[in-house]
Each structure stands twice: as C-alpha cells, then as structure tokens.
C-alpha cells in the first residue's frame, strides 16, 4: 500500500515538474490587450444631404419697378424669405433636367436681369449632382436669371473657367420660373445697391478696388443687440465620438476651467463655449478626394461632432496646402435674420485622406423666450437702433486701416462689407453686437454699427 502511494506521488511530482517546466519555458496563454472593452454605441446625427449642405451666400433680386436696375433686394441665410426662395429655386434647378437649349452667346443688351444667386462654397452641378443634371459637371460661382421677350435664360458663371454656361429655358420651365418670381413680395424689404469703385470714389479721397460683388443698404436699417447663449456641448457624447475608447483619454484641468482630454495622440479641449480637437499625426497627409466628396465629408464632420443646427451655414470649403501636405478646410457660420454672427474662434474643420485632424467649434445663438407657442420671440435687450450708413462706415474703416499701416501707398482693395453681429461680453453672458464688417487688403475691421466705434478682434468671444 505504501509502495503504491509512493509510486502515485512520484507520478504526480513528475507531472507537476513537466507542467512547471512548460510554464517556465513557453509562458501561459497571452493576455488580452486591454482589460475591458468599453466600446459603446454612439447615436450620431444624420449628415445633411448635399442639397441641404450648400445654400447661396445671398440671393440678389433686382427691383422690377426700378427702370435703371440699380435697386436690389438682398436675401441671406436666416431670413424667412431667403429660406423659402432658395427652397423654390433649388427645386427649380433640380427639375430643369434637359428642358433647355445650350446657347453659345447671350444677348445681354435685350435682357432683363431678375436675380442672381451667389455661391461660396461653389455649387456642384451636372450629372450625378442634385442640380442641373442636364449639363456636364462643373462648379458654379453664381447663377444669373434673365428674361428676353418672355423667354427665360440662365447664365452660369463657373469658378475655374472664364466661359459661362448659357441656358435658354423652354416654355414650361420659363412659365415655372415666372410663377416663382412673381410670388415674391418686396414691399417690406430693405433696398440695396451694388458697390462700385466709381461710387466709392465719391466718398473717399483715394482709389479703392472691389474684388467681389458687394451690396450695401440704401434704406435705413435697424438692428438690436442680442442676448446670446453658447451652444450647449454634451461632453460625454463628444468624448465617445472623438475617442473610440474614451477610457484611454486622460484629463488635464486648465486654470481657466477648460478641460483637455488626450490619449497621447489626439487632444480634445472643451471650455464652456467652445471645443478644439487636434490629431497632429494625420496632418502630413495628402488629399485625393474631389470637392464633391469634400462636401460630404465636411457635412459628416459637423453633424457627428456636435450637430448641424438650423441657422448654421457652410461658409467656406477650399483645398489648401502646407509644405507637401494638402488638405481641405471647411468653415461654418451662424446667421440671424440674414446677418452672420462672428465669433473669436471659428467653427472650422481641417481634413485630408487620413481624416479629420483639426476641428474647432464655437457657436452662439440668440436666446429666445419659450412662450409655449410655435413662434418663439427673441429676448429684447433694447430698442432697435438705426445703423450708420455704408459710406460713413467705409470712411471710418479706411481710417482704421490707415492707422494700422501709416504711409502705405498700397492700392486699397475692398474685399468684404456687410452688416453682421460680433459676439462680445463674458462667457457667462455673451451678447451679439451689431457691426459693420469690412475687410480691406486682408485686414478684418469691425465697427459698431450705430456708433462706428472700432471693436478689436481680441474682444470677440
């Protein structure tokens, strides 16, 4: 019995020594890479369709009652008339299909100019695009609508080629367009004129060129200061969206209360009023996708990373480069009643073939009173005040510019001029102040709209 026990013990010891030798030599089964998988389902906002992603900068309607054609009506994002007009025009452009004849020349002398749609970013039209599927693919900077003796013409100015595409609409489509514009009422609209170098020279003692079509109001315009609120960013949602496994992201608490999340490769900075995301490793990439694809991508990014609110307009989309890297930049702007709201930090995305490598988002919206009705009213801070005239604003802007560059003999170029809002005040109580926004030779100048007091860009939230 004892011998049998000793034999059994020996076998056990031999087996144990073999197991231990194996363990020592080969190790055990490899461990899982990460202790716990924490991937979570994230419900993202559905990106906008292409026809919803691009809207005109503005739609300029010629006053049918002005025989000289100088008086215009300007419609921009955030205005009810603009939304309805662009909806109709967009549908009209989608339905044209092949109902036109392609013309080689345009009899401008006999034509009556009705309206112009300006696009920035440019509008992709042609086959497999939502608009004007009957023509070859091209990118359009503006579309001008004319009539000549009852027939309607479209002149499409392309972004990269000098030659315009000229379409003469057939009878059906001409009737459709006639109905579309005849429905428009301009009774309560502000009259605008087109700025020209000659017109400017009447007010300035020096020459100034104009690089882009600009329109300024000739009627009195009233604007008011707005009570704003910063967009409410859902931190947990953004963390889950930017980081596949947000448990790997560490937190850095800034002295000003901002929070930075980083996994060592990418960083997300969140403050009460903004977010900034950066993924430097992806910067040195190339861009092989088209403008059309870039539109889809930027629509995805803004929708995924915070959403695409109603009055947010895609303002810019362009390909640029640094060194040997090329990437797209897209930028968005909030509009209120046709006026853009400028913030200190743009809402902007940088992306290339590798993906999104830089994204900033800072949006403010007018606060509204929720009075349990469908139409919400704005919180009134003060009475609407008349804004200073465009000529006074331009003169003041030139003075500011000359103070910045004394003695400069450079020819002045007026690159932008429009009424808008800037976001000022504190982060806790941001306010929208009406301003004249004027860009001269690349320099942005903000002048308070009724006093023409200069507002420094450092003071903009």
């Amino acid at each position, binding site marked *: 019995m004892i011998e049998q026990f000793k034999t059994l013990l020996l076998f056990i010891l031999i087996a144990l020594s073999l197991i231990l030798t194996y363990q020592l030599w080969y190790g055990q089964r490899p461990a899982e890479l*990460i202790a716990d998988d924490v991937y979570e389902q994230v419900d993202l906002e559905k990106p906008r369709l292409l026809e919803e992603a691009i809207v005109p900068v503005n739609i300029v309607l010629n006053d049918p009652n002005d025989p000289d054609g100088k008086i215009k009506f300007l419609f921009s994002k955030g205005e009810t008339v603009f939304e309805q007009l662009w909806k109709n025009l967009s549908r009209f452009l989608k339905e044209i299909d092949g109902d036109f004849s392609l013309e080689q020349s345009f009899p401008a002398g006999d034509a009556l100019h009705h309206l112009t749609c300006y696009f920035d970013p440019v509008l992709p039209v042609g086959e497999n695009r939502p608009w004007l599927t009957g023509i070859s693919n091209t990118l359009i900077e503006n579309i001008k609508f004319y009539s000549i003796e009852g027939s309607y013409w479209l002149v499409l100015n392309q972004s990269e080629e000098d030659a315009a595409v000229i379409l003469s609409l057939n009878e059906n489509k001409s009737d459709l367009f006639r109905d579309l514009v005849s429905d428009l009422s301009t009774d309560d609209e502000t009259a605008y004129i087109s700025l020209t170098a000659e017109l400017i020279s009447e007010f300035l003692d020096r020459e100034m060129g104009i690089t882009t079509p600009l329109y300024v109001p000739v009627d009195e315009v009233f604007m008011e200061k707005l009570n704003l609120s910063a967009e409410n960013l859902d931190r947990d949602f953004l963390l889950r969206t930017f980081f596949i496994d947000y448990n*790997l992201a560490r*937190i*850095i608490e800034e002295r000003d209360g901002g929070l*930075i999340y*980083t996994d*060592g490769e990418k960083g997300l900075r969140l403050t009460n009023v903004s977010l900034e995301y*950066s993924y430097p490793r992806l910067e040195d990439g190339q861009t092989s996708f088209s403008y059309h694809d870039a539109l889809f991508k930027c629509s995805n990014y803004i929708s995924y990373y915070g959403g695409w609110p109603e009055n947010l307009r895609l303002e810019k989309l362009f390909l640029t480069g640094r060194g040997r890297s090329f990437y797209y930049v897209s930028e968005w702007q909030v509009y209120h009643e046709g006026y853009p709201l400028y913030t200190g930090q743009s809402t902007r995305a940088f992306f290339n073939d590798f993906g999104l490598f830089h994204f900033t988002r800072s949006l403010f919206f007018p606060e509204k009173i929720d009075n349990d009705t469908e139409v919400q009213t704005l919180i009134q801070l003060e009475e609407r005040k008349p804004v200073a005239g465009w000529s006074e604003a331009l003169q003041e802007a030139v003075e500011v510019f000359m103070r910045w560059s004394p003695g400069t003999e450079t020819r002045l170029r007026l690159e932008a001029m429009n009424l808008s809002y800037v976001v000022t005040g504190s982060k806790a109580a941001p306010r929208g102040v009406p301003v004249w926004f004027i860009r001269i030779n690349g320099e942005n100048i903000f002048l308070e709209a009724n006093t023409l007091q200069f507002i420094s860009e450092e003071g903009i939230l």
Partner: protein
Amino acid sequence: MNLGRATLILIVAFTGLNIFLGYQLFWPDFGRLRQVAITSDQLQATERMLKDNNYVLEASFERAKQTSFFLTVSPDRDIKNDFLDYYIKAGVRINKTDNTTYYQSEEKTVLVHANGLIQVFYKSGAFLIEDTLNLEIRVLKNLVEEFLNNKGLLPEEYVFDYLEINDNNEITIHYYQAMNGMPIYSGQFKVIIENDHITAINIYWLQPVETIPYREMEVISATEALNNLVTELGASTDERTIKEIDLGYFSGEYDAEKWEIPPVWRIVLDGDQKYYINAFTGNLENNAVIPDQ
C-alpha cells in the same frame, strides 16, 4: 538497491526540482501566478524584428501581465513654497512677468515659472569639490545630494537617472521623481556643474493628487511597446542598443491646475535617448497633441 528506495530517491529529487521550478516561476511575487503577457514565441519574434531593424535588446523586462491606472498630478506647490521661503528669508528682489517670477539676490537668481518649473542660477557658482570631472559617478552624485540636502533643496522620493558631460566639460546630473517605487518620469530635477561649481539647478516636481483605481486597465506588454517604437522610428542605419525598458508615469508639462498622466514604457536607446510609449494606447507620447498649449 530495491524499487522502494529508488522511488523514494526519485520523489526527493522531483520534489527538489518542483521547488526549484516553483521558485523560478513565482518568487518573489506570487502575483506572477497571473497570466504572462509575453510568450516565448512573442519574445523571439520581437528580438528578430529588432535585429532586422538594427536594434539590439540589452534590457530585461517584466513578462507578466500588468495592470495600471491614471495618476492625477499637479505642480508641487510645497516645493515651490519651500523655495520661496528659503529665498524670501534671504532678502531678494522680486520681479514678475506674466508667466515667471524672478527672485534675485547677489549670489543667486530663482525663476519660478507658472507651469511649476523652478530654476536656480548661482552667479559665481557654489563650490563642490576639486576635479569633479575625474570623480566616480557614485561619489559625485553623493556630494551633490549632500549639498542639496544641506540647502534643504532635495525633494523626496528622487531617483538618480543618468549623468552627462558635454563638449564644454559641463556635467549635468539628472534625477527623476518616484511614487511608492514607481517612476514619475515627468517630475525631474537636474544639477549642472561647471568647473567644480554647481551653477544651476532645475526642478520640475509633481504632486500626486490621486490615483484612479476604478479605471485600472491592463498595460500593453514591453514587446508590444518595442514593436510600436520601432514602427515609429523605422529601421536604424547604425546599430542601436536598447538599454532600458521600464514601466513608469509620464506626460508632457502643462500650465494647468491638475492633470492625469498615463503609465508608459520608457525605452532608453544608447544610454541617453528616451522614448515614452503610452502603456494603455501603445502610442508614442509627445507634447504636440494638446491644442493651444
């Protein structure tokens, strides 16, 4: 010899063998009973990969599965206050800029930066000992630590890292911070010696605020860290030697209230080039990812 005696001898022999194997496997920490993270095959594959890319592995490392968690830190205000007490008592002129406070006396200037970095400059140097260049590292290190201790400038839980001598015969001794034996590579101080005199001391020390055990996760293996590093650096034209590979904590320096730092594998190449691989993500850590920093 009968069968019973032979069996007994074999039992004794195998018992001894099992004790030896058990010791090798589990001693000194029975935590090694955990699964190992690196199998022999993986280790061999990594060694082949290193060799193919002209790297030589001279360092040893832990093969067992390990876990860790983020560590929350802030700039060490106690050190800063000690410095200020020490220099304010000595009667100094104080100048301030946006990010730096200057404390100046006849002999020294102390710069306290907003991010927590403290720099001490001795105008004519503090004499240490003759012929420092020919001293043994151990002796020189002990002298420096004694000097700092006497001045009340020696932080707690410091670890000697390395010593370097530049072309101008300037000696720099590097130390890093530790917490319960775990290196915090971000916290460091260095002492600069010129012509047998200490001329400057730089201290960037961190205050561990809290560990975050509820986010405890398994760290990547040392071999995976090596694989990631070679992927980042690419093949080397000259042979490079991997001298050390250790687990610790590291992150960039931030001008912030407090921040979390991840565990990293610190890999030292050729004795002086250091790389930090995030032990959770496997990414090479750098400072450029944080916006507006």
